[in-house]
Structure formats: structure tokens, C-alpha cells
């Protein structure tokens, strides 16, 4: 049972109809397996379809072809085991911090008192216990992101999907948030798919780094990251093995970035 992969994509393809009526392939023939408790980072050139991969796993979108399985079961609609942290702010601006974190359990029918208790617990863990009465607009970007993390973790997801969650934050806050994420994740044993365009972040966080091709996205290469845990982002960055890995992976990723850039230049010309 424990050998069942947490996430399994086989030959997954997703096509969208663009507003102009043309057919756009975001993801093509994608095979990817994520083991239980594994942290996988997905890197690729901008706009290649990394985010689409996550929406397929979450059940927000269905694949046009191929199959997506979560714990061996094909994905049909949104799975309650899944948590999703979005790139943009997705906390509800009209709810207070506490009410935002309570939203998940309340939507799932947990009684208010219990939901409040669980929400307070997670707010304490992300260091926002003193801010539960604030509205999101009264918080900094980093704090809002921590509300989003608490909002996701409070549902005890066993599969955590993260779509460039820290890309809007400044460099220092981002490093702190990455450490905090590793800390929160260590206690849960959940599987993580972390989409990012930042290779540093990918190597520092993940057990494996998946490099995607230029769009339509498919897996190009997968690199195991053999750095010991527990890690802290700032320290692991200075290890010789980190630099080695960075060079190796960039050799693969850089090529795809170049292809994407040349296409963009061709379109602009």
C-alpha cells in the first residue's frame, strides 16, 4: 500500500482553446511519478505549462488525454487530500486572518469551535497568532503568504501542490518562507509538488528536481538531490554539492530557457 505512488501522471496532455479559437497545447504526453512523502520541485522556462500540470493533479482541470492518479485512484474532481498554494494572493480579502484559516475546515463541515481551535494552532505555527483579527490588506506580502500556508495546512493535505508560491516575495522573505515551509512539511509526511522558476529554491527544497521542456511542457530530465536533511536554505546554498548540482541542472534547463527566449524574440520580430 505504501508503495503506491502519491501522484502518477501517465501520458497526460492538456489542450486549451485560446480566445482567438486556436488550439493551444499546454502539456504534452507528460509522465511523472511522485512517491509518498517526497518533495519534488518542477522547474522550466516561463509559460511552459508547469502550472497546468498542478491544476491537472488538483482536479481543477481534467486532462485532454492520458491519466492522472492520486494514491492509485484516477482523479475525478477535487480530492480532499489535496492542498494548493497559489502564486497570487488567494486569501479572502473580506475575511479576517482567523476566519481565512478556518475557511477550509468550515467548508468541510467541521464545527466552528473545533475549526477555530485548529486554525489558531496553525496560526501560532506560522507566527501570526497576534494577527488573527486583521484583514489581509493590513498585512505584508510575506504575512499574507503565511496565512495562505496556514489555510492550506489546516486541512491536513497529504498532497501539497505549490505554484510558485513565493515568487512575489522579496529575496530575504523568500528564504525565510522556504525554511518555514520545510519545517512545516517535515512534521506532516505529505508529498509536495513545488513549481518554481528559481533553480536555487528548487535544489534547496526538493528531493528531486524535474526539468520541463519549453512549452508544450513535458518532462525533460529528472535530477535527484542528494543533500542531507534537515536543510536550511542559506546554509545548503554554500555546500559544494549544491553548486555542482546547480551547474548540472542549469546545463539542462538553460537550453530550454534559450529556446523559449528565441521563440519570444521570433514572435516579437
Amino acid at each position, binding site marked *: 500500500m505504501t508503495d503506491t505512488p502519491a501522484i502518477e501522471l501517465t501520458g497526460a496532455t492538456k489542450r486549451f482553446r485560446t480566445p482567438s479559437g486556436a488550439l493551444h497545447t499546454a502539456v504534452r504526453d507528460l509522465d511523472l511519478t511522485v512517491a509518498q512523502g517526497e518533495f519534488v520541485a518542477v522547474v522550466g522556462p516561463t509559460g511552459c505549462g508547469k502550472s497546468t500540470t498542478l491544476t491537472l493533479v488538483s482536479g481543477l482541470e481534467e486532462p485532454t488525454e492520458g491519466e492522472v492518479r492520486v494514491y492509485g485512484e484516477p482523479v475525478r474532481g477535487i480530492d480532499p487530500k489535496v492542498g494548493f498554494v*497559489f502564486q497570487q494572493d488567494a486569501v479572502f480579502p473580506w475575511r479576517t486572518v482567523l476566519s481565512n484559516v478556518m475557511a477550509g475546515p468550515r467548508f468541510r463541515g467541521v464545527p466552528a469551535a473545533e475549526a477555530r481551535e485548529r486554525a489558531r494552532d496553525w496560526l501560532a505555527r506560522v507566527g501570526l497568532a497576534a494577527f488573527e483579527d486583521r484583514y489581509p490588506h493590513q498585512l505584508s506580502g510575506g504575512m499574507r503568504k503565511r496565512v495562505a500556508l496556514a489555510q492550506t495546512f489546516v486541512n491536513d493535505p497529504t498532497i501539497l501542490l505549490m505554484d510558485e508560491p513565493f515568487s512575489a516575495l522579496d529575496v530575504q522573505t523568500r528564504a525565510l518562507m522556504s525554511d518555514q515551509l520545510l519545517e512545516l512539511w517535515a512534521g506532516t509526511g505529505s508529498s509536495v509538488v513545488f513549481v518554481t522558476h528559481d533553480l536555487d529554491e528548487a535544489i534547496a527544497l526538493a528531493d528531486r528536481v524535474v526539468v520541463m521542456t519549453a512549452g508544450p511542457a513535458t518532462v525533460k530530465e529528472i535530477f535527484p538531490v542528494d543533500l542531507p536533511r534537515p536543510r536550511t536554505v542559506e546554509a545548503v546554498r554554500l555546500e559544494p554539492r549544491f553548486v555542482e548540482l546547480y551547474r548540472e541542472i542549469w546545463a539542462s534547463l538553460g537550453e530550454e530557457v534559450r529556446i523559449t527566449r528565441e521563440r519570444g524574440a521570433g514572435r516579437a520580430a
Partner: protein
Amino acid sequence: MPLETASETASTAAGKPPAVTSRTEARERAARNRKLTVYAARIGVLVAFLGLWEVCARTEVIDPFNFSQPSRIWDQIWQWITHGTAQGSLGEQIGYTLYEALTGWVIGVVGGVLLGIALGRIRFLADVFGPYIKVLNAIPRIVLAPIFLIWFGLGPASKVASAVVLVFFPVFFNAFQGAREVDRNLVANARILGADNRRVTLQVVIPAATTWIFTSLHVSFGFALIGAIVGEYIGATKGLGLLVAAAQGTFNAAGVYAAMTILAVVALLTEGLLTFAEKRLFRWKPADAGDGR
């Protein structure tokens, strides 16, 4: 991590007391003076306008029979207040008009919001009813007032009906647009967190659309008043619109202006109440309107 919390706390609580120096004091005094100057200038404009009108009317530069004059208008208002109008006390006329406008407004708003959200959320309904609503919206709805008079008689019902048709459409279109333009991330987030369709509508779409809806509430209360007044003007037994019609029928220009003045005051007061309610409801919004989030 605790370090970050501390620094963020400091930046959030940026409202530290300003150092009192002669410069800040001078700046505050200048700001106060500016405010006073603005108020004084406003009053000056009003006095000059009314004064010029009065003088022109008295010296017969303009014909006071057609254009009346501020002192006569004031006398007329005072007479209505103290002795009542031909149809009863002034308070009763205001009450009638407000009652019709408010009833029409509430019905129009509730209908507009419900239908707007329903059509905004349910694609099928929007596709079916879309063209019909466009056609209805294309009719200049004020011409329906005489028809309502025939259908519902001289009583308040016909005025309520014309207020409803005027209010419904702007509210409907705003609610519809608001429900359509909800941030897709918010909806996706709510669904992932476990919200079903009903919860997405009630707890995400409606709160997100309130900003849109409230914009239309301001405008639409004005429309409700127009509906009620025009209805009364065409035919009624009570109300401010009837007052206008009666004054016009007796060539009493001062009466027409007096009724207009009373209407303006009533409209301003209700507008103020609405703004107050809005402030209470939108505490979650940042103070400056420029930045959404």
C-alpha cells in the same frame, strides 16, 4: 522567524506619534486653513448665486413669474411647513414619495441582485435570458410609467412599479458583472479548500460582487426617486411629484422650485445614509480606493 514577525509588526504599526516641531505645526495650520477657505468659498458661491437671482428677479432683469426668486421659494416652503399643502401636510407628501421610492428600490435591488448573481453563476440561464434582458434594457423605461398608471391605478403601486423597472437594470447588470469578474484564484482556492457550488456562490461570489453592487446602489436610489416622482407627476393623490404638478398647473413657479429643493435635500440625506452603511460593510477594504489588494 520570530525576528521577521517583529520587523513586520514594526512596519505594520507605522502610526507612531509625529514629532511636534514648529514645521509640522505650521503644516497642520495650513491644512486647517485650507479646509476653512474651501468651506467659505462654497458658501460664497451659494450666496452669490442666490443673491444674483434675487436681485435680477427684483429688478425684473429676469421675469419673476417664470423664474421665481429665492425669497418666494423660501416663503412657499415655509408655508407648506406651517400650513401644509393642498393635499395635506408636507411631511405626508415626503413620506409618500419616500415610501414609494424605498419600496421600489428594495424590490428592484433584491430582484436585480438575485437575478444578476444567478445569471452570472449559471451559464445556461445567462445564454437563454441574455437577449431578452438586452431588449428590455433598450426600452426607455420611463415611458412605462403611464402604462403602470393604467395597470395599477393612482395609488402608490404604480409609482413603486416605475421605480422598480428603473432600479432593476443597473443593479442587475452590476451584480451580473460582479459575479462574472470574481477573481478566479479565489474561486479555485475555495474549491480546493472544500467549498461546494453553493458555498462558492454564498461565501466567495457574493462578497466579491458587493463592491460592484454597491456602486449601483448609489446611482439606483436616485433612479428610484425619479421613478416615484415621474409616476406621481403623471397621476397621483399624494406625493412630492403631485406637488410639482399642482404648482405647475396653477402657474406657481415658486412651488415647482420649492418641491425641487425639498427633493434635493431628501436625496442628499438618503445618499448620506447609504455611504454610512457602505463604510460599515467594507471594513475589509484598504482605505485608499486606488489599490484593490
